[in-house]
């Protein structure tokens, strides 16, 4: 019983770290630019597909392929921000949200045209399985958790330690004051979308390695990402980390002990419950 629970927690942490990656990307866009970037999941899937093509067709290793896809994904994010979100920056928030829905359709349609309707799994060399005290630990899951932690840590370091990161934080705190102090808010928007999409692509590639990529997976992922945001508090990076892991673990426990068909329902009920008790999220500011 306890071993099984620990096993589910371990599995939950692996998928939870992917949720965290997606959610951190969403939360920086939301917290700094106030945009609910619904197309994030589909953009992440484009990156996942690209990683698949690069490993499968060109024979690149998993991480080199992901690095290439990451750069392409960052470029895609910049293009989306520049062409679609920036024109509605001063319009009511709902307009940016509708734009996000439109972008989701474009990206989902684009993925379908470019990569076809088949489900793909990105091949990785990390197929070992270790047994530690009755727990089954797959090497791939460890790699997923490590990669996700590294990516989030790198992003956090960039934001907290560099000059560019400081300008991002300034815009997040007070956009007008930041602009008056000579911060280029447009450049910050570009940077935020590049960072967010890069993290999303890592998430997409990890999902592709851990589970599979198929049409519609991106939309499911972005909804989970938003659920994490609500759990952790909109705009909070520590909240996204904790929320992602909480969602992953509660989903895994629900799948293991209650019903795997209803695991999403249980995950969302957890989210709704948290929202009702603490509307500002687990780690959000009141």
């Amino acid at each position, binding site marked *: 019983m306890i071993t099984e629970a620990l096993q589910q927690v371990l599995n939950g942490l692996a998928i939870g770290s992917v949720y965290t990656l997606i959610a951190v990307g969403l939360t920086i866009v939301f917290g700094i630019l106030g945009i609910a970037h619904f197309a994030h999941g589909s953009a992440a899937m484009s990156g996942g597909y690209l990683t698949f093509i690069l490993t499968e067709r060109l024979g690149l290793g998993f991480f080199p392929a992901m690095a290439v896809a990451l750069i392409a994904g960052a470029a895609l994010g910049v293009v989306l921000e520049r062409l679609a979100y920036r024109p509605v920056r001063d319009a009511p928030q709902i307009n940016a*949200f509708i734009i996000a829905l*439109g972008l989701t*359709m474009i990206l989902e*349609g684009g993925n379908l*045209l470019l990569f076809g309707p088949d489900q793909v799994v990105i091949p990785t060399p990390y197929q070992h399985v270790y047994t530690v005290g009755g727990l089954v630990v797959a090497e791939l899951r460890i790699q997923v958790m490590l990669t996700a932690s590294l990516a989030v840590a790198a992003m956090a370091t960039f934001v907290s330690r560099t000059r560019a990161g400081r300008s991002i934080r300034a815009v997040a705190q007070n956009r007008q004051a930041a602009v008056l102090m000579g911060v280029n808010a447009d450049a910050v928007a570009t940077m935020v979308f590049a960072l967010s999409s890069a993290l999303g692509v890592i998430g997409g590639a990890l999902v592709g390695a851990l589970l599979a990529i198929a049409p519609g997976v991106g939309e499911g992922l972005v*909804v989970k990402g*938003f659920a994490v945001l*609500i759990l952790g508090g*909109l705009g909070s990076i520590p909240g996204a980390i904790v929320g992602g892991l909480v969602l992953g673990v509660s989903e895994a426990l629900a799948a293991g002990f209650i019903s795997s068909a209803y695991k999403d*329902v249980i995950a969302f009920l957890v989210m709704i419950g948290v929202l009702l008790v603490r509307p500002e999220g687990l780690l959000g500011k009141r």
Partner: protein
Amino acid sequence: MSRALRVGIGTAVAIAALALPHALTVPYFLHLTILACIWTVLAQGQNLVQGFSGYVSIAAGGFMAIGAYASALLSVKAGWPVWTSMALAPFVAAAFALVVGYPSLRVKGHYFAIVTLAYNLVIVTVLNNYESFTGGEAGMPNIQRPAALVLGGLQLSFAGREGYYYLVLLAAAAATAGGALVLHSRVGRVLIAIRQNEMVVDALGVAAWRYKLFAFVASGFLAGLAGALYAHFIGFLNPEPFGTDQSMNAILAVTLGGSGTLLGPIVGAFLVVTLPEYLRVADTYRLVAYGLLLVLATIFMPRGIVPMVSRGFQGMATRLAAALRPRPDPTP
């Protein structure tokens, strides 16, 4: 626009709508018009929440599913008369909206949007997995059309497309009339005040949550009605058409047509039903084209079609009046 002109245009539209089945020679067009009328009911409900009070709900598809399944289950499994089940279905959906709306309206803005999205996902997941009750993904066949009515010796049949068209037309007109009633009442004014500044509404001692809850429940009611009409028109139900895509379609209908206007949801509903059909010519590029259209429309006409067109008309009328006015003689 003068009152006489409005009445004239209204009458013309009404006559055109009533004569439509005789004018449309292709049955498929009538099929689409029926769907557009059903979507009008859905969009008018969405407009109550999104257009009036400014809260974006992403649960329209889910409530539509509840109405559709309630009516289908009551008539197919419980053997109730179709009219009874169709009349009850909106109340079932409204009851659900009441139960989920009360807690979720405590949060605002994007939080509210995401919570309603989660409700939609929960509803679809349950419908997909509770197979003994709903038939799951394989669906529920053989949902009957409502029985014929005899009114003063006149037999009204709803078995064919034409008869059903008049039923959904009536529903769409009633939903629009309901929207007008709300808009021009105290409730509507409070809802619009909430959209403009909810804090002021609260500060004035008006219990904003009651009005928001009313709008949310009413939108659930209309979505349920749309669902019931859909179920008995198509005759087959599975959870697929009620996903978040459908809720987004409702949002699009309201936004494209003109959020907060009465005609906007009608125009929007016809657009979201017919546009994908037109784009079917380029089937592989359909999703991309639809998305692109949406992005461009939001950037270049953010207020929607109806306000843009009516402003265009007003501008033309002003210019026309100015041109017709005799100019004062410039020479002293």
